[in-house]
């Protein structure tokens, strides 16, 4: 209670410091600009020019799986090794490392779900200028140019993508520090060793190579000038923090040119528009997982997670670039058409003076190697499938986790939990999960409960279980340094903590005060961590308790940029190398823990704040500590859309805004928006007033209830989309351009979005809005307002007057969406409920949809225990066909009602079931809206059936 101040004094001081420094916005001074990040500044100083790199064609080796080739930097004679792979599924992988690095450079493990299967490359032609290789189908080729080195991927006569065309390939080779004693000794030894080697090797090396060969010491000699020129290569200071950089400079960089492309997307997480902006006049987009206090909107600053994947799109092709590197990364974007008005572009076109529009992208990382996957599409869904084949798909969430989540920092005690739970029943609002933030623990010792406030957690969990509801409790990765704390003692005795540069356990300040950080990059550490979730280890837990990983960037209150020192050590690797993947490992170990505690049967639900490429495999993410402001409501749409594009479908923003207290209007609008976003959780900062849905007067309670109820009626559709995302990698929440890739009008839309391909949502995100203008895409489409059933044509901007109860949502003509209209206390209560099918006819009077059913919580769907059906309406007949004949599952759910939008009045309706029985179905027809409602056809949802309108 109350004076939290006492116990939290140290932390509060820090927060206070942060608070004081900037009223209600991020303190930018706490985070680096490119200029303050030595490698970024160094690399960005390089301007496009002829590349110093040259391909040594004579070193080329072409095997069944790859092409290898050495590159030499003519300035310093350092050699690189290029590996080029043609991957199955229309992808190309380009890997560049030092030919002979002083010590191994970090290659990110555990992100690819397997070694990507290759396809043979065939040599089409070769001369002294380069080689041409076939990429298989559709006249796709890759051209390797030797002098200067560049790669061009062609299709026919068209260049799809060029690498190093601007000469920005840069590879800071590892080197000895020259001004130290150890350098002198090593370099002498090295040259002696080289001489000995030469004497004893029978095979003489080719003359050319010998001349150009440079040992590290010599490299350092030749690169002397480079070394001297720039500060921050061997040491770097930011604010009061110094980074010792024992390995010296190690950055890598490469440019990509995308001819014909004006729209690029992805590289989350940034609080910015869906369409990425050019960065010429400011900082590049930064990817570095950081705990940013009160983040600002519409800028390229780094946030909690990083997925180094960019999508490029134009009317005839979508491609992707996956830059597999877990170090701090900056992405520069420039465009030759940026800043030109539409008129200017037209003028260019008319005058014929225009150059092809082109977007140029440049990636810079602090360490590691260059390992790039070029996904060649050509459609958006191809790119999703390609990326999914590399890093896996969205984990299939338990159905309940798609319901509504009620969170707050903090629900104070068991009585508080009980009364909030009862509040939902009293106000007849469904919910599935209630959440406990850090205060539930015994002094911020995760895996424990406060002995007074949560004295009998099992009793509490059982109480929720009796209502078919669940709970999430937080488990953060910082561990209180306290010799009376079992978790700390075990980690210490197993030597599982991350080390500081001097070899001791790394310690930093976080919620518990002084804390250690387990080394989640270690598989044995993760196994141990997972085992801590066992019911006999994590006392007071039951199967309806799930987990939330916060602060896993990792957040270190007294560290540089509120995170871990880059020279901290994870075994042989520096934190610098692994920073962006740390959070993924925490998430993964936790999800595995939840799976293991159930004996491998139950799907886990774990929410994470930090993430990386591949995090989609372990659960949900949210957009971190946002604020109760209208702009934060708006930005939730592009932020989740960007995440969906790079595989992370299970995304949401704190409903209501974390910091500050929302007014009733903002809160209602946020519920209405959140109800149509994948992860639907209300959350609030401890310093804000209570905001459970019933605290804003009966009218607002009713509005919120209605929004939540709409969510619950659509759970069958959400669940089916998540199943699809799990199977294919297609995003659940999609930008319009993904479904209308040939319509440039959709390319920058991010104030509305699609759920799957059939629901268009244009939430009201303006204060005091009287109306919104929604863009209904598709020249040949029709869209039905899901509330009024009014039909609208596609390819138009539609003005929709709105009231406080309005949530503009449209169903695409040609789709069938299953709903469960009997909204109950929780999703589990609705398990056996009947379906209502909404059949929206297109102009051809056809429609198609799917229905997916399983037990909602186990992995048994992997054992083919599910129902997956195709519903199609054609020739006045609606039928359900089995999409998975080898799967087995039974359901009590039946078809309660079929609503056909855009129908004409039949004279009679007949239902025919598997047993051949035909029976008439009663119906009602609303001529004004052309809505036909079939009353209680009654078929089981898992059966084959046909309904015919006559």
């Amino acid at each position: 209670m109350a004076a939290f101040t006492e116990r939290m004094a140290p932390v509060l001081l820090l927060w206070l410091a942060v608070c004081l420094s900037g009223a209600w916005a991020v303190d930018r001074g706490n985070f680096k600009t490119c200029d303050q990040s030595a490698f970024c500044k160094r690399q960005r100083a390089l301007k496009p020019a002829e590349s110093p790199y040259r391909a040594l064609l004579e070193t080329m080796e072409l095997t069944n799986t790859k092409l290898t080739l050495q590159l030499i930097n003519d300035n310093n004679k350092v050699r690189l090794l290029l590996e080029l792979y043609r991957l199955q599924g229309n992808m190309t992988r380009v890997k560049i490392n030092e030919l002979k690095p002083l010590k191994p450079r970090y290659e990110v493990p555990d992100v690819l779900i397997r070694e990507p299967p290759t396809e043979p490359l065939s040599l089409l032609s070769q001369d002294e200028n380069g080689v041409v290789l076939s990429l298989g189908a559709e006249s796709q080729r890759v051209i390797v140019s030797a002098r200067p080195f560049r790669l061009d991927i062609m299709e026919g006569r068209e260049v799809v993508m060029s690498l190093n065309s601007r000469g920005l390939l840069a590879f800071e080779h590892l080197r000895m520090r020259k001004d130290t004693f150890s350098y002198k000794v090593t370099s002498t030894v090295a040259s002696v060793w080289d001489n000995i080697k030469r004497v004893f090797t029978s095979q003489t090396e080719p003359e050319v190579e010998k001349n150009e060969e440079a040992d590290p010491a010599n490299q350092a000699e030749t690169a002397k000038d480079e070394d001297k020129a720039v500060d921050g290569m061997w040491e770097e200071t930011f604010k009061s923090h110094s980074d010792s950089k024992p390995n010296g400079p190690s950055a890598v960089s490469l440019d990509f040119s995308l001819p014909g492309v004006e729209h690029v997307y992805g590289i989350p997480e940034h609080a910015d528009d869906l369409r990425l902006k050019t960065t010429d006049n400011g900082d590049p987009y930064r990817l570095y997982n950081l705990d940013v206090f009160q983040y600002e909107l519409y800028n390229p600053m780094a946030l909690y997670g990083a997925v180094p994947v960019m999508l490029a799109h134009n009317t005839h092709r979508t491609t992707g670039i996956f830059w597999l590197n877990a170090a701090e990364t900056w992405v520069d974007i420039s465009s030759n058409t940026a800043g030109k008005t539409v008129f200017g572009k037209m003028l260019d076109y008319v005058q014929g003076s225009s150059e092809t529009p082109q977007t140029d992208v440049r990636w810079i990382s602090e360490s590691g190697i260059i390992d790039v996957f070029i996904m060649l599409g050509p459609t958006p869904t191809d790119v999703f499938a390609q990326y999914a084949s590399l890093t896996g798909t969205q984990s299939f969430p338990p159905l309940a986790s798609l319901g509504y989540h009620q969170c707050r920092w903090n629900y104070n005690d068991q009585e508080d939990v009980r009364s909030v739970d009862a509040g939902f029943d009293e106000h007849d609002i469904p919910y599935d999960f209630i959440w406990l933030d850090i205060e539930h623990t015994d002094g911020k010792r995760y895996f424990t409960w406060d002995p007074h406030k949560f004295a009998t957690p099992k009793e509490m969990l059982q109480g929720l279980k009796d209502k078919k509801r669940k709970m999430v409790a937080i488990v953060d990765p910082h561990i209180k340094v306290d010799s009376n704390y079992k978790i700390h003692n075990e980690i210490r005795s197993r030597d599982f903590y991350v080390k500081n540069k001097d070899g001791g356990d790394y310690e930093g300040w976080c919620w518990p005060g002084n804390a250690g950080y387990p080394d989640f990059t270690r598989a044995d550490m993760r196994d141990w961590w997972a085992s801590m979730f066992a019911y006999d280890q994590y006392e007071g837990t039951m199967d309806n308790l799930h987990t939330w990983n916060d602060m896993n960037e990792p957040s270190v209150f007294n560290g540089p940029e509120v995170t871990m020192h880059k020279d901290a050590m994870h075994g042989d690797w520096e934190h610098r190398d692994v920073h962006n993947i740390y959070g993924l490992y925490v998430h993964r170990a936790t999800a595995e823990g939840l799976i293991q505690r159930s004996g491998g049967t139950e799907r886990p639900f774990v929410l994470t704040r930090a993430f990386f490429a591949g995090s989609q495999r372990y659960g949900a993410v949210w957009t971190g500590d946002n604020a109760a402001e209208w702009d934060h409501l708006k930005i939730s749409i592009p932020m989740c859309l960007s995440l969906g594009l790079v595989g992370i479908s299970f995304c949401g923003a704190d409903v209501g805004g974390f910091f500050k207290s929302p007014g009733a209007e903002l809160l209602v609008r946020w519920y209405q928006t959140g109800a149509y976003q994948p992860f639907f959780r209300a959350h609030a900062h401890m310093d804000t007033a209570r905001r459970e849905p019933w605290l804003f007067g009966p009218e607002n309670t009713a509005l919120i209830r209605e929004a939540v109820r709409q969510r619950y009626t659509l759970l069958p559709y959400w669940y089916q989309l998540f199943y699809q995302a799990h199977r294919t990698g297609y995003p659940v929440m999609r930008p319009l351009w993904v479904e209308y890739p040939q319509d440039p009008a959709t390319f920058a839309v991010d104030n509305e979005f699609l759920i799957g391909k059939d629901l268009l949502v244009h939430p009201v995100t303006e204060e005091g809005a009287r109306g919104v203008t929604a863009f209904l895409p598709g020249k040949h489409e029709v869209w039905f307002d899901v509330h009024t059933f009014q039909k609208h044509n596609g390819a138009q901007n539609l003005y929709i007057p709105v009231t406080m109860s309005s949530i503009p949502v449209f169903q695409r003509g040609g789709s069938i969406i299953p709903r469960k209209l009997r909204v109950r206390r929780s999703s589990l209560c609705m398990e056996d409920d009947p379906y209502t099918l909404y059949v929206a006819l297109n102009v051809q009077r056809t429609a198609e949809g799917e229905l997916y059913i399983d037990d909602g919580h186990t992995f048994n769907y992997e054992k083919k225990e599910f129902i997956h059906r195709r519903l199609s309406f054609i020739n006045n007949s609606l039928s359900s066909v089995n999409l998975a004949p080898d799967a087995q599952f039974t359901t009590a759910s039946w078809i309660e009602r079929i609503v056909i939008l855009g129908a004409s009045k039949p004279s009679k309706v007949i239902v025919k079931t598997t047993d051949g029985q035909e029976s008439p179905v009663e119906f009602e027809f609303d001529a004004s809206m052309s809505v036909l409602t079939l009353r209680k056809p009654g078929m089981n949802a898992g059966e084959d059936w046909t309904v015919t309108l006559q």
Partner: protein
Amino acid sequence: MFFQIIFAAVFSGGLVDARKIRGISSSYKRFYRERKSFLCIDGSKIIPFEQVNDDYCDCDDGSDEPGTSACPRGRFYCTNLGFRPHYIPSSRVNDGICDCCDASDEYNSHAHCQNTCWNLGQKERAYVEVQMRTLDEGLRLKQQLIEEGVLLWREKQAQLRELQQVAEDLQIKLEEHRRRKHEADQLKEQTLKALAAGDSGLGRWNRTVSSVFQLLDSNGDGSITVDEVQAKVSFVHDEEQILSEEEAAALLGGGQRMDLIKFQHTLWEVLTKGDNVKIKDTPSSPVGEDPHLQAADKAAEWETTNLKKVEEAYDTVNMEISDLQKKLAIDYGTDWEFLFLNSQCYKLKVYEYTYTLCPFNQVLQKNTAGTEVSLGKWGMWAGTAKNQYSQMVYENGEPCWQGGSRSTTVTLTCGTETALRSVKEPSKCQYMMDFQTPVACQPVLKQRGIHSEL
């Protein structure tokens, strides 16, 4: 399918047996008399009677499905024989959770519900009995407290009147003293003036030539010298400026000395008739030694002290009056039943904090280290329109960390003792207290009881 079972039940129940309609109370039976058709209760639609409780929602008001979960706005009647009957939302029918104690809501679900109505009824009866006893006892105590309150109120009123009387008396006294002081001051002033006039007029009343001569003759040698003139005589317009030797000598008629005789005819004339020079006012001036003036001065001082005393007494009494008036201005309930809480404090320890509620005054929180924090000062009653005395608000406590200040809402509940029962902080700096006291007992509670339906 289960709705077929319902049909069977409905049909086998016979023609007019409306009691078999699931989920309705007896008062609604008249709407469900078996006929060919059923009219939705809101009159919106007529449907075949078979469609009542057939697990499909036909009526907008949900009236055709009182016994199933089919209608979004429907409600299901739990008869709960042996306990209280009540309605639940239709969405709780067959949801796998036992809501009606007679298990009637889960007639087709996996839930194994027991009929717990009898037990619940017992418990509730016992509880109600305790409640009633508490209420009776509470009301009895309340009556006492009301009586005490009335007495206390009267006492306080009497006290107020007494104080006001004292104040009035003091007022008179004060005026008397003010008058006296005024007179004393005046006397003093007049005396002073008279003396001053004597000074400048030199013996118009009581000064003689010889006395002035003696005054000027500082060393008493029988003659006035230049030094002595310089010391005692000044210009009328500028007392500070010392006369020069020449000027002094001029006054002495050009010589260095002057005896009484010469003085009487020369300087005396100048001092008494001219308006150029005068005798200086000096500390040792004869004014301070004047016995009349000394008496007047003492009298004035005496009266000032007296007045101050009376004023202080008057202020104290007035403060007491305004305090009392402020206290009496607080709404202590229709019968002053809450008056006794004034000047009381109640404590409760919750985890590491001790909370103190001093009704109509303030709320405090003290931690184990002994630091005290104000959680608010008396603000107002903030109960419902029906009973505004069900809640108190204390506001403007210690400022909060993120702005605003601490406040406490106290909910009053009926009990036989007066005590602080619980303290919570649902939002930061917003405290909720549960305060039990007999005076919160309301006779209306008595009407609540158990009536079960047959």
